[in-house]
C-alpha cells in the first residue's frame, strides 16, 4: 500500500513536468503574426527592441504620466493592436487644410482633432468651415525597410509613370522639415527647401522619429524635448517622456519585421499574383523596393516586397475628403502598402475596415473604391470573371 502511494506520487511528479510541455499550446507560426523583430539582431539590439516593444504595447499613459488633457487614445498599442491595422474606434480626424499653402486652422486646434479629454476638460470639436478627413491607423510593421528607400528611388518611380498608358502618375509629398529632424544622407531637397516625406496615409511624415514625436504629442498628448507644445494650452511645457524612450520607440519601429507572405507557391495565389500585375495594380502597388545602407544587417541593402511606391496618387472624387497635408492634393493618397493585408482582420476585430477611413468592409469594396489614376485598373478588375476575382483576392489575403 505504502509503496503504491509513493509510486503514484513519483509518477504524478513526472507527469506534471512533462505536462508543462504537452498541455500548454504551441506558439503561432511567425508568418501569422505581425509582431516580432527582423532576424539577426545582436543581444544589445534585441534588448532595445524589447524596451521599445514595452513602451509601444504596454505603456498606458494616465493623467499622472502626462496623458492629454486632450487626446485620442492612451497608448500606441491601443491604436495599432499587435502592431496591426487599427479599428475605427481609434481613428483620427484631421481638419483645416485644402491645398499646399498649409493649415488655416492652427489657432483652432488644427490639424488634429483631440476628440477625447480627461475628466474636467472639454475635448475639441471641428470648427465651422473646416473640411476634415478620417484616418484609420495603419499597421506599423516593416517600416524600417520603407524608411531606407532612397529619395532617388522614389523620384525614379514617379518619373517612370510619366507616360503610363493607364493614366497612373503619382508624385512624392514634399514637406518642410520640423526643426528637430535632420535630413537623411543622400536626401534630395526641392527648390523651395522641402523634402520627400513617406509615412502616414498622405505620406506627409518624414521619418520614424517625426512620426513617433507627433503621435505622442497629437494622439496621446505627450510632450517631448522634440515637440514640447501642449495641445490643450498651446504653450511649451516640460517633456512628459524621456528622449531615450522616444528613441527606443523609433528603434522598435525600425526593426519590426516585415509581414511574411503565406503559401506563396500555392497555385491559386500565384495565378492571383499574375492577375494583379496584368490588370495594372502593380503600377502603384510596387512589389519590390530596395533599402540603402543600414547598421542593422537584416535591413542593409536588401530587396523587400511592400506593394507600394510611397507616392501619392489622385484617387478620384469619391476618396477626396477636401483635406490634405504637405503638397499632396486633397484627392491624393499614398499607395497603401499591401503587405500584411491578409492579417489585418486579426487586429480589426475579425472584420475589414480598409482604405484611409476604414469605409471599405471587404477587399472587393476597397478595390471598387479606386478611382482617378486607378480607374483603368479598377475597371479591368470589374471585367474579370468571378474565378479570377477570387484568385486575386486569395493572393491579396496571402500577403
Amino acid at each position, binding site marked *: 500500500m505504502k509503496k503504491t502511494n509513493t509510486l503514484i506520487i513519483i509518477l504524478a511528479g513526472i507527469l506534471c513536468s512533462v505536462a*508543462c510541455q504537452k498541455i500548454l499550446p504551441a506558439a503561432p507560426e511567425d508568418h501569422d503574426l505581425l509582431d516580432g523583430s527582423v532576424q539577426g539582431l545582436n543581444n544589445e539590439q534585441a534588448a532595445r527592441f524589447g524596451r521599445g516593444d514595452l513602451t509601444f504595447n504596454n505603456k*498606458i499613459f494616465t493623467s499622472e*504620466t502626462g496623458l492629454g488633457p486632450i487626446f485620442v487614445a492612451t497608448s500606441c498599442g491601443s491604436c495599432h*493592436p499587435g502592431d496591426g491595422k487599427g479599428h475605427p474606434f481609434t481613428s483620427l480626424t484631421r481638419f483645416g487644410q485644402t491645398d499646399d499653402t498649409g493649415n488655416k486652422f492652427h489657432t483652432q486646434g488644427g490639424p488634429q482633432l483631440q476628440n477625447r479629454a480627461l475628466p474636467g476638460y472639454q475635448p475639441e470639436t471641428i470648427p465651422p468651415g473646416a473640411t476634415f478627413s478620417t484616418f484609420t491607423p495603419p499597421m506599423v510593421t516593416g517600416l524600417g525597410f520603407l524608411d531606407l528607400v532612397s529619395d532617388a528611388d522614389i523620384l525614379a518611380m514617379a518619373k517612370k509613370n510619366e507616360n503610363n498608358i493607364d493614366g497612373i502618375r503619382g508624385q512624392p509629398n514634399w514637406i518642410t522639415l520640423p526643426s528637430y529632424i535632420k535630413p537623411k544622407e543622400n536626401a534630395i531637397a526641392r527648390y523651395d527647401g522641402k523634402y520627400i516625406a513617406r509615412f502616414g496615409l498622405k505620406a506627409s511624415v518624414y521619418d520614424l522619429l517625426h512620426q513617433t514625436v507627433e503621435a505622442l504629442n497629437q494622439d496621446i498628448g505627450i510632450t517631448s524635448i522634440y515637440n514640447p507644445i501642449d495641445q490643450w494650452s498651446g504653450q511649451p511645457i516640460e517633456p512628459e517622456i524621456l528622449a531615450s524612450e522616444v528613441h527606443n520607440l523609433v528603434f522598435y519601429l525600425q526593426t519590426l519585421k516585415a509581414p511574411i507572405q503565406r503559401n506563396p507557391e500555392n497555385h491559386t495565389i500565384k495565378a492571383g499574383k499574375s492577375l494583379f500585375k496584368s490588370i495594372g495594380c502593380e503600377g502603384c502597388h510596387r512589389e519590390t523596393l530596395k533599402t540603402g545602407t543600414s547598421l542593422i544587417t537584416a535591413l542593409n541593402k536588401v530587396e523587400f516586397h511592400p506593394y507600394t511606391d510611397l507616392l501619392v496618387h489622385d484617387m478620384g472624387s469619391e476618396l477626396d475628403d477636401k483635406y490634405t497635408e504637405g503638397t499632396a492634393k486633397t484627392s491624393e493618397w499614398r499607395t497603401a502598402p499591401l503587405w500584411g493585408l491578409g492579417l489585418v482582420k*486579426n487586429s480589426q476585430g475579425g472584420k475589414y475596415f480598409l482604405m484611409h477611413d476604414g469605409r471599405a468592409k471587404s477587399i472587393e469594396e476597397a478595390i471598387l473604391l479606386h478611382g482617378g489614376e486607378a480607374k483603368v485598373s479598377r475597371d479591368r478588375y470589374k471585367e474579370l470573371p468571378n474565378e479570377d476575382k477570387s484568385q486575386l483576392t486569395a493572393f491579396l489575403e496571402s500577403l
Partner: protein
Amino acid sequence: MNNKLYYSIITLLCFTLNSYAQIDSTLIKPGSDTTKRSLMNLEAIHNRPFTNIGNTPAALGGYMESNWQYLSTEGVSEGHQFQFRRLTLFTSATITKRIKFLAEIEFEDGAKEIAIEFAALDIELSPLLNLRGGMIVNPIGAFNENHDGPKWEFTDRPLAMTNMLPATWSTPGFGIYGKKSFNKWMASYEFYLSSGFDNSIIENSENKTFLPATKQNKNRFEESENGTIFTTTKFAVKNNKWGEIGISHMGGIYNKYRDEGIDIDDKRRVNIYAIDFNTQIPNTKTFVTGEFAWVFVDVPETYSQQFGTKQQGGFIDIVQPLYTRKVLDWNNATVNLSVRIEYVDWNKGRFKETGHQIGDEAWSFMPGISFRPSQKSVFRLNYRYLKTRDLFQNTPERTDALIVGISTYF
C-alpha cells in the same frame, strides 16, 4: 442627507426588532469550526482558527499561500515561477464582555505590499445589532469577506472578484450588522458607511475601468478625495438544507467634483451589485459556491470608451469530495475534485463609431484536485485554461497554466 436618514431608520428598526431577541455570542466568538452549518458568510471574519495565548484574552492566527506555477500565453512562457502569494496574520482580543477586536494584516508577494485588511472593534448589543468600526472589509458579494486561501480549493482567487471587484477591499468605516435564526432559517444584514473609490478607477494603466486601481492610492485611509460617503448594504438568508444566498450593493461618488470649493465636474457615481450563494447538495455532498457582480460607472461622455461604463462577471466553484478517511495521523483527510468556471466582461457596450460590441473579456475554466489533511490546510493542483479577448474582439489569446500550491492556517 439621504444616507443619514437611511442610517437612522435602519438603526431604529433594529432596536425595535431586537428587544425580543436572545443574546447569542457566536457572532463574535473566535475559534469556531469553519464548516459549521449555523454560520453565515458575514461571520467569516471572526470564524477562523485561532490559538489562545496562555490565559490572556488575546488569540493569534493566520494563514499563508504559496505556489509553483508554469504558465504559457500563446506559446510564450516565463518559465517556472515559485510564488509566495501571501502571509496573513490575525489577532483577536476580547476586550471586555461583548467587545471584541480583530486585526488582519497581510503581507503580499514577499513583503512588497503590506496591508491592514481588517482592524475593527465589534460591540454586540444583541445578535441583531452589532456595531463595528475601524478598518472594515466591505460586504460586497461573499468572497471579499470570506477570502482566506485555505478555505478554497483553487490556487488563484476568482478573476471577477479581484480584477473587477477589488477584493480584498477594505476601507475605514463604521456600520452595523446582525443575524437572526428561525428554525431552519437564518437571515442577516450588514450596513456600513465608509470611504470609497477615486478617479483612478477610470484613469489607470490597466487601460480599462478598474476598481482595484484605487488600492494604489496610499492616502485613501486618511483622506477621501471628494469627502463623500460610500454605503455598503448586504442581506442574506440561509436555510440549513438549501444553503445561503446574499444580495449586496456598494456605491457612492468616486470623482473629485469640487476643488477648493469650486465645482470642477459633475458628481459621478459608481454602483456595484452582487449576488452570492453557496450550498451543499445533500445526496452527493457536492459544494457549489458562486458569485456574480455588476458594476456601473458614470464615465464622462467626453472621455474614452476604452473605459467602460458597465462591467459584469462572476464565478462558480463545484467541489466534489471524493473520499474522506484516515491517512497517516490525519483522521479526516479528504481528497476533492473541483472545477471553477469564471467570466469577466470589463467593458459592456457598443462602439459609437461602428455599433459593434466592445470586447475586453475573459473566460476561464480551472479543474483541480485537492488534498486536505484537515480542514485547516490544503494542497492543490490546478490546471487553468484562460481566454482573454481585447477591446476590439480580436481572436482571443489563450493562456494555459499548471499550478501546484499549498495554503494553510496556522
